[in-house]
């Protein structure tokens, strides 16, 4: 058993960190017991915004999720040493107000700040939004308009084997990503990361980015229709 670091060092080390107590009873190993002594704990909190219609409801959902996460951190293993829980908030789900979520996130971070739960404080470290509009891509894809094209693109990107012209789009995007990565301005990142992205991994990243950007464009287009 590798106990790992007894203290959580960065957001990549999520979960409880501490020491493992191992006892032997008559030559037999008793189940090891983790005593979490790390004062900091990193957690990724996924919040489903499905059904959220306004900002008040959004704040209520976020606060409830944070409180629940705090209680879990307190009750899981030993809470005696824990003082801070750094939260990476991941927003998912289908929400009619998808276009307003970004603004809500900025305001909720300002208003909540550090969120106390019992003896620990929850700090929102990062927020990523994968909130999607409540649409059926297949239905949208039937129409020959930008929304239909975007919907068809998203459907295609979700399929492992790509065909033209979607594969061309991914290749082209992967090349552009690589170009940016190798840009002189980001040379320091390359030197520090010491990681060379191979084509496959770049294409994977490109596909992921295209999916995210596709949803973002779709949201923006639908927002135009909702604004009419």
């Amino acid at each position, binding site marked *: 058993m590798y106990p790992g670091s007894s203290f959580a060092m960065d957001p990549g080390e999520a979960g409880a960190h501490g020491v493992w107590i191992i006892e032997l009873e008559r030559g037999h190993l008793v189940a090891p017991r983790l005593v979490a002594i790390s004062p900091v704990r990193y957690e990724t909190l996924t919040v489903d915004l499905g059904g959220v219609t306004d900002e008040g409801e959004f704040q209520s959902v976020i606060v409830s999720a944070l409180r629940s996460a705090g209680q879990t951190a307190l009750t899981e293993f030993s809470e005696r040493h824990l003082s801070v829980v750094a939260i990476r908030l991941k927003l998912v789900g289908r929400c009619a107000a998808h276009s307003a979520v970004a603004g809500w996130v900025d305001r909720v971070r300002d208003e909540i700040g550090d969120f106390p739960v019992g003896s620990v404080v929850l700090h929102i470290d990062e927020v990523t939004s994968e909130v999607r509009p409540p*649409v*059926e891509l297949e*239905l*949208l894809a*039937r*129409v*020959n*308009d*930008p*929304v*239909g*094209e*975007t919907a068809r*693109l998203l459907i295609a990107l979700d399929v492992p084997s790509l065909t033209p*012209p979607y594969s061309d*789009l991914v290749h*082209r*995007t992967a090349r*552009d*990503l690589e*170009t*940016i*990565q190798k*840009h*002189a*301005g*980001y040379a*320091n*990142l390359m030197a*520090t990361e010491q990681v060379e992205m191979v084509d496959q991994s770049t294409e994977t*990243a*490109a596909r992921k*980015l*295209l999916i*995210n*950007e*596709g949803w*973002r*464009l779709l949201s*923006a*287009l*639908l*927002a*135009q*229709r909702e604004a*009419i």
Partner: protein
Amino acid sequence: MSTESSVSHSPLHISRVGIDRLDGISDRFELKTLCPGINLIFGPNACGKSRTATALQALIWPDTVPARAELSGHLATKNDAWLVTCGSQGRAYERNGSIVEPPNLSGIPSLQRDRYLLSLHDLLSSESQDLANIIQRESAGGYDINLAREKSGIGGTPPRAQSAKAKSAYQRARAQTKTFRDADLRLQAEERRLLALRQQLDDAVAAAQMEQLLTAALEYVAAKERLRESVESRAAFPDPIGQMSGDEFTRTERIRSKVDELSTERRDAERAISSAISRLDKTGYGSQIPPEETLPALRARLGLLVERQAALRNAEDSVLTQRTLSMKARERLGATIDDTQIMALDESGIRKLAELKREFESVRLTAETQAELQSWIGPLQPVPDLAPLRRGIELLSSRLRTPGKESAHPPSGTLKVTLLLAAMVIVIEAIVLAATTSPLFAAMVALAIPVIAVAFRQVQPEARHLASELEREYQALGLEQVSDTSSNSLIADLDRLRERLAEAEVDHAKAGRWANLANRRQEAEEKSGALVERIHQVVDELGVAIAEDPDSVRLIADALEKWRHSTDERLKAESIVISAREKISQSLGQMNATFSLYGIDDAIDHLEASAKIDELERRIVEAKIARSEVQKYEDIIESRIDPEMRTQQQEIESLLSSLGLLPGDHSTLQDLCERVPACKDAQRKVEQNEVLAKSMLARLDGVLELSACARPELESRLAEARHLSGSQTELQATIIRIEQSVNTAKTSSNLEAAVADEAVAFEALSQSRARDWEKVAGWNLSEFVQSQSRDKSRPPVFRKARDLFTDFTAGSFRLEIDEGVKPSFRAVETSSGRGVGLDQLSSGTRVQLLMAVRLAFIEEMESGHQLPLILDEILGNTDDLRASAIIDATIEICRLGRQVIYFTAQHD
């Protein structure tokens, strides 16, 4: 769906819509018999036309039914008739009377339903905005990709790496970190040097401590040498001296002096004993002191003797007194009776004379008493008869109680009122008492009322007759007649009669007393005569020549009695005198016997006996004092002086013996004592040196091996330690200087903050790259979507729009389109072949072009039926030319088979 798909592009029209409930519409209503062509629906503003349009579209796209709405409608296609019901229970579809699953009547998402709703606002945009852009947007279903791209943060131009700012910040942070890191390296070097210097300082401090230990070790060695020398010096003294305190000789001298004092004291005690024995011998009681009870016994006897002496004197005085009384009684007898006669009178004779005297006194006293009583009663009066008086009083009393003639009439009004008031008071009191205390009082009311009634009626007529009888009987008694028969007169007469009766009863009592007193005086006179007779008889019997009158006999008897009494008393006193003298003699004899026993001469009377007793007491006291002194001094000698002398001598002998000296060897003791101080000094030095050596040894705690080292080795190691510790001050100064410089460097450098800043800058750079990636991906994607839309959907829309535009303008215009990334449009007047720009078209033609593009997109989009087009007041506030164009276009749309529903608030 499958059935409907087979008949694509056939029109679908709404024939009826019923609105039971819909927000914005107050009353339920129904639009019946909508035709497949143009339907004009008129209604004033705010009557719910827009909501009705929503309801119409909800029949086609059920997922857009507003909340809480209840709708129904009939739709018609070429082959089917549909009934659509939407409400709180959900949606229901019937096709030709059969319930079916919800179909997709439109074939396009509800999102696109706004394409079927054309408002005046849409048409006016053709005049206020760039028509080419509007045409492009309309051809793209109303979407503006460029605008969406800008809203998504991608921007309007192909993105490039935007790293300059983040890179610059990162490089600055990195340079700052490097500067601080170099400084930190220097700091670390200084700290390492500091560590070494501190080690050297620790060594120097340890050497200094070792120097102290070595110095202590050397002092310990010196102390041990001094201890050895003092032990040797102490050993030169013989053993006994070590045990001595030095004052032993002084103590023995003091003891010897004490022994001498005790010897002197013993001699004084012996002399006191001799003196006491001498005084004891002088008392005569040297061998034995009279017992304690001797003196009390003598004093008791002396007291008895004194009493007897007093009794003797009293008896002698009594003899003399009785003798005088006897002589006086004899003198009273006088010559009427000589001594021979007196002596001849025996005891009984004198007693008889005395009895006669007492009887005579009694008779005389009785006579005097009766005379006094007779004088008090007074002369005897005639006694009246008491019986008539008593009968008269009875008659008058009866007459007073009996009503006579003067009262034989009904009771007066006053009496009546009095009786009635009395009766009412009694009744009220009875009721009150019955209510408050007991119901028994209620019964009293019942009894009281008849009693009062009887009393009220009591006056009888026959009472007058009884009164007359009483008056006649009274007159017959012969008493004083009554003045009249009124009550007051009767009462006055009755009182007079009672007074007369009282006076008559007193007279009767006096008469009784008189009769009794006369009898008693007669008895007294008879007794007096009998007594004279007896006197004569007694005188004769006694044969003495005394006058025989009672007074003489009484005087003789009295004198004889006193003479006889005094003579008897004198004889008794003389007998007592004799007895007392014998007892006095007896007491003196007993006392003198005791006196003789203890060497005291005889006493002749009680005074002398008292003096002898005092002398005996004095001698006894002296003997006791002397014997006590002897005992006391003997006790002093035995219990204190002798034991103490023995103790002191034993102490001297014990002391000498403990020092190994012979008894009495005081000179040797004195010599040893003189050497004790020197020995003590030597001993004290030994002890001091021992303490010193121990304390020195204690200072070597932890390095006890130093105590075993020899002086040369210690001196050598001390020199070495001194050399090492000598650099301590310099090292401390150097350390302080370096510490100060390190602290200064630490406060002026904040490597941690710089590293954190670098991390933040790095993260910012990383995020900048992520944003660039997102922008590139977003740009590529939007370009892709735009190109796909342009290539796939726009050309057919444009072609259809061109045809429709020609139709709408009745062939007056033809639309020429130069398709490209940014298409351009030009209208050509068919009659002249002249081409004009869009901005040169009339407003009506522009509207017709806009409607053509909108309809073209719809038709290109529709994969199922032709759906109804809803026009919302598109003719309002428009000129005739444009209105005519709109109407023409609408008619053309309808002609092509599409149902048109036109809402307007204009009745004309």
